[in-house]
């Protein structure tokens, strides 16, 4: 067992490639990380594509086509541990905005040759189709958190990823609160930690890249936004973007729909 390196596979569904790029963006750690595993399947980085089974599978992207559904079922069979990375894989991503569209309306939009395309009417997270062993949040994910998760799975321990809100990180950084000081909408109080309160550090309200934290109080935050003078459309929009189909954000956006 000690002689055999664990086999790592990286898969892609419907996505922008950014989350798997996070691994290649970990320039200081990349060679060490990849020296610890057998990079058995990672088409974006290597021509060598080994067959499964794999010890760890990372999957980015959401399920949007019949082909994706077949692929993810096969991938699940081949991976001992399956880790969904990023907002697309964990919540359906920005492309889940289609989930509110009237599909009949879409089919009416004239396209040169729509018969060439096949797609599902919803963009769904990986967990809607198969069991997922861990979900790493973010649009994009935090590369250091990805390394931590890989490290944890390789060493059979629980990943050390805090599940509190962005607001906590922001307070720890000593940022001025953009809601209080600048009257900006900020999802920091309900968004999962992971970015180190990036947007408030740049004088801008959080827009929820990491999705809802555990038990978020979105309705109180929405009523705070209303008191600050924002209308329903603004509130619906801020909850309806990169993690729009994560349950808490979906419900709050729908509560503010006309």
């Amino acid at each position, binding site marked *: 067992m000690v002689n055999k390196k664990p086999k790592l596979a990286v898969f892609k569904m419907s996505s*922008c490639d950014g989350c798997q790029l996070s691994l290649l963006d970990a320039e200081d750690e990349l060679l060490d990380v990849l020296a610890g595993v057998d990079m058995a399947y990672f088409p974006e980085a290597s021509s060598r594509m080994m067959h499964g089974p794999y010890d760890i599978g990372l999957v980015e992207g959401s399920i949007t086509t019949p*082909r994706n559904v077949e692929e993810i079922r096969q991938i699940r069979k081949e991976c001992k541990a399956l880790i969904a990375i990023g907002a697309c894989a964990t919540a359906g991503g920005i492309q889940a905005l289609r989930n509110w569209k009237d599909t009949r309306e879409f089919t009416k939009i004239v396209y040169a040759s729509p018969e060439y395309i096949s797609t599902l009417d919803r963009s769904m997270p990986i967990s809607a189709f198969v069991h997922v062993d861990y979900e790493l949040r973010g649009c994009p994910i935090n590369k250091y958190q990805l390394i931590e998760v890989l490290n944890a799975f390789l060493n059979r321990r629980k990943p050390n990823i805090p599940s509190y809100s962005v607001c906590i990180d922001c307070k720890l950084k000593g940022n001025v609160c953009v809601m209080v000081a600048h009257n900006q909408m900020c999802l920091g109080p309900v968004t999962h930690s992971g970015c180190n309160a990036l947007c408030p550090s740049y004088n801008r309200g959080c827009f929820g890249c990491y999705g809802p934290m555990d038990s978020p109080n979105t309705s109180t935050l929405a009523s705070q936004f209303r008191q600050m003078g924002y209308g329903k459309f603004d509130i619906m929009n801020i909850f309806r973007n990169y993690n729009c189909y994560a349950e808490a954000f979906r419900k709050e956006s729908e509560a503010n729909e006309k």
Partner: protein
Amino acid sequence: MKNKTIKVDYLARVEGEGALYLKIKNDEVADVQLQIFEPPRFFEAFLRGRPYYEAPDITARICGICPVAYQMSAVHAMENAFGAVIPNEIRELRRLLYCGEWIESHTLHLYMLHAPDFLGYDDVVHMAKDHPEVVKKALRLKKIGNDIMNMVGGREIHPINVKVGGFYKVPTRNELMKMYDDICWARDAAIDTAKFAASLEFPEFFQDYECVSVVHPDEYPFNEGRIMSTKGIDISPEQYDFHFREEHVEHSHALHSRIRERDNYLVGPIARYNLNYDKLTPLCKEIASEIGLGKEVYNPFKSIVVRGIETLYSCEEALRIIDSYRMPDSPSVEIEPSEATGYACTEAPRGMIYHRYRVNSEGLIEDAKIVPPTSQNQKTIESDLRNFLPTVINLTEKEMVWKCEQAVRNYDPCISCATHFLTLHIERE
């Protein structure tokens, strides 16, 4: 060989999902298809009804490899619509952000995705075993590109600091100066990179491309300028749709672009270089001459060398911007949205990208059109393959496939970008 059908089901070392289909009949090329099966994500459809100011953040999500290209094109198109005038200090910071993306993206492609083709490795990890110093230098160079994006944009993938009108927060001179020594190192590493790329072996293969890129009177192009071609196009971005059109073909989820009055064309490093050589710095020209690149390049396999020169340009340009940096009085200018249509073309690392938005009086997007570089190059990639295949037809199948994949990777194709905008056809489960 006579009759043969070759399928590469999943192209490696490109961004996104594509396949290659080659058909040979009586030792002649019968069909070539770059098949793109990346699922469509319909960005143009769901941008409708969103506020204008969300365009830079939403369109960034089209591509994790070149989000800055989408953000820059979106903000320029919106500012074009509303007639906003951007102060030079903000303009310079935008160029600096683009420098970061070019350095990062070019280095990623050159060393990690393309060099393994030339040197016969499956990937950079295997290459690192034989060439550890080359790979370590590549990773540091790439990291410096990412550092620039982090500093100016907040993070390297999907930066958060770009807005219509400018930035949310601008760096101080001291913050930028902290990167200065690293970028000086990067400039030297980029010289080595161009020399390394030029030392690779290239097939003798030349194509008579119509090169298309943004051209600016004073600068090597990033953000602004006219659209020009080597065969006479000279237009503003507003006129793009009159000269270029897109076709939907069965084997691809990305639309194929062509020049209306002619045919396929080339965007990307070679096209930019051929149209903008005189705007390069003296050092870039000196190194280009030293490595024998010439003022024009028509061998697509040499795109890797041009990427090296453009990486050097980006480092020098970043140093120039930091040297002369004055912090803007305000991070952004006020934007007054109005009912209008805006257009912009900027230069993504892979080539020119076009954005067009129609916005209503409430500032909501009514219509969006985005043409990424890879869909513009798709027809040219296929044409290259059709012409290149006969030169390798006598090799073993394995070698032939290797060479053809390499020819596709000359374009650094970003398939995730190319496939985002198809209108929906529903198939219910």
